[in-house]
């Protein structure tokens, strides 16, 4: 039964990685922008929630609801002010600029909050659990996974059922022709990044409630997010969830064998998928 428990915990952990990855996947899918600061933006959002919690005494979940529109605005401004200028035929400028942004965010957080590790106080959620058959499931883990599924459902709804999503996909296909339809690509991209930052806020909420964080952990979250996106196949959000689950299961299985193998097992699973299915499990599944 220990194996069943490990497997289920791994699947639930995959929800967290899918949350890390969904925003990255969205931005890449719409504007072919690889945001190397994505992990650091998650950490920055966690600090924003932390500040709101300590200022107002709100529960982190309520604080995240306040943080989400702020992060949307920050994403919109970031895209309009900086990232739009880097987009073009050459893929190098966005990489360099977001890499620089990553360094800036890490150092600004270090300056503002020191290197001490922090935690978003989850209250009773931290210890609450539900027994399903032989397996005990943490409520927080279940909530994380449910949020990942909800985020993907909502993003897919926006992408495939709304005028905004249509504009996202059209601009992604062909920004020049999109302009002939009256669409402003720079605005569309800014909305997409704003939306991605809302997802980032949700990811930050669970990151901070589940474990400690400090200003330096962003890049590792970026790696997990990347791996989830690549395993799933570029452009498929459900694939991204599957990718997150594969990494999560590999990590918990690795840890069950030997705690030192947790991180390594996730990376090995990624390499194995890459070797067998270089384009991921569900390439070009829609957007």
């Amino acid at each position, binding site marked *: 039964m220990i194996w069943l428990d490990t497997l289920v915990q791994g699947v639930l952990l995959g929800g967290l990685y899918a949350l890390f990855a969904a925003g990255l996947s969205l931005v890449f899918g719409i504007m072919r922008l690889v945001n190397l600061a994505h992990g650091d933006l998650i950490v920055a959002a966690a600090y924003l929630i932390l500040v709101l919690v300590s200022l107002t005494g709100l529960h982190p979940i309520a604080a995240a609801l306040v943080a989400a529109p702020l992060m949307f605005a920050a994403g919109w401004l970031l895209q309009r002010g900086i990232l739009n200028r880097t987009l073009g035929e050459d893929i190098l400028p966005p990489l360099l600029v977001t890499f620089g942004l990553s360094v800036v965010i890490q150092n600004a957080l270090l300056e503002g909050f020191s290197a001490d590790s922090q935690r978003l106080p989850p209250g009773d959620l931290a210890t609450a659990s539900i027994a399903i058959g032989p397996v005990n499931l943490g409520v927080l883990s279940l909530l994380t996974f449910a949020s990942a599924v909800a985020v993907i459902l909502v993003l897919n709804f926006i992408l495939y059922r709304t*005028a905004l999503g*249509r*504009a996202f*996909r*059209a601009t*992604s*296909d*062909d920004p*020049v*022709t*999109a*302009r*002939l*339809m*009256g*669409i*402003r690509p720079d605005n569309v991209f800014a909305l997409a990044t704003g939306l991605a930052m809302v997802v980032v806020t949700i990811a930050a909420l669970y990151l901070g409630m589940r474990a400690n964080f400090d200003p330096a952990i962003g890049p590792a979250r970026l790696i997990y997010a990347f791996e989830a996106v690549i395993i799933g196949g570029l452009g498929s959000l459900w694939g991204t969830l599957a990718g997150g689950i594969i990494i999560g299961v590999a990590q918990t299985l690795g840890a069950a064998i030997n705690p030192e193998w947790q991180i390594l097992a996730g990376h090995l699973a990624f390499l194995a998928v890459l070797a067998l299915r270089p384009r991921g499990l569900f390439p070009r599944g*829609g*957007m």
Partner: protein
Amino acid sequence: MSLLSTHGLVARYGLFQALWGIDLRLEAGETLAVIGANGAGKSTLMRAITGLLRTAPEQVRLEGAPIGGLPAERVAALGIAMVPEGRKLFPSLTVEENLAIGAHGRKAGGAWTLETVYDLFPILRERRAAPGTALSGGQQQMVAIGRALMSNPRVLLCDEISLGLAPVVIRDIYAAMPRIKAVGAAVIVVEQDVGTALKVADRVYCLMEGRVTLEGRPADLSRERIHTAYFGAAA
């Protein structure tokens, strides 16, 4: 006042000057044909009118108001729609979504809706759920035209809509023109096929090397004059 006009329109790509002072006017309800050989500047002219290529503001006017300096998305919102060369359907969108996105910048309603476009091209109703790029060339062209109509434009620009299509398909597509005009749009068709152009147009402009070499009503233009204007001095 003309609906749409250009005044000494010049355009260049870097050092290469593609248009050398084009004066063109389009009256309400009129159909113009712009003909010319490859590289004559026809597509550049379309790009300049739609704002994909910025020009001096006064060089392109809509009902007298300067629009030459506006970006393409603003020009589209003013009621100038284009059927781009090569159709340029959005591959991630279904036929119906391709049509719907044409109405993206539309402010007011108008005669053209999904239903009326489907009435114009009934085959598209059957293929509405298919990806736009899964259709035949002629059907894709119908989607591109329908997409432009969905904005209920005052001016419809059609860039090489017969390119690469079989004659029977071209005839089907041009058969839709009277209904498009009946709704009130003025039309500019860019054509390499002179015969087709002369049939549909009220007036014709012929371009060569970025200049207007001939302008007039099809009935008034002799074969020789068109030939000379199209290819240069008679060999």
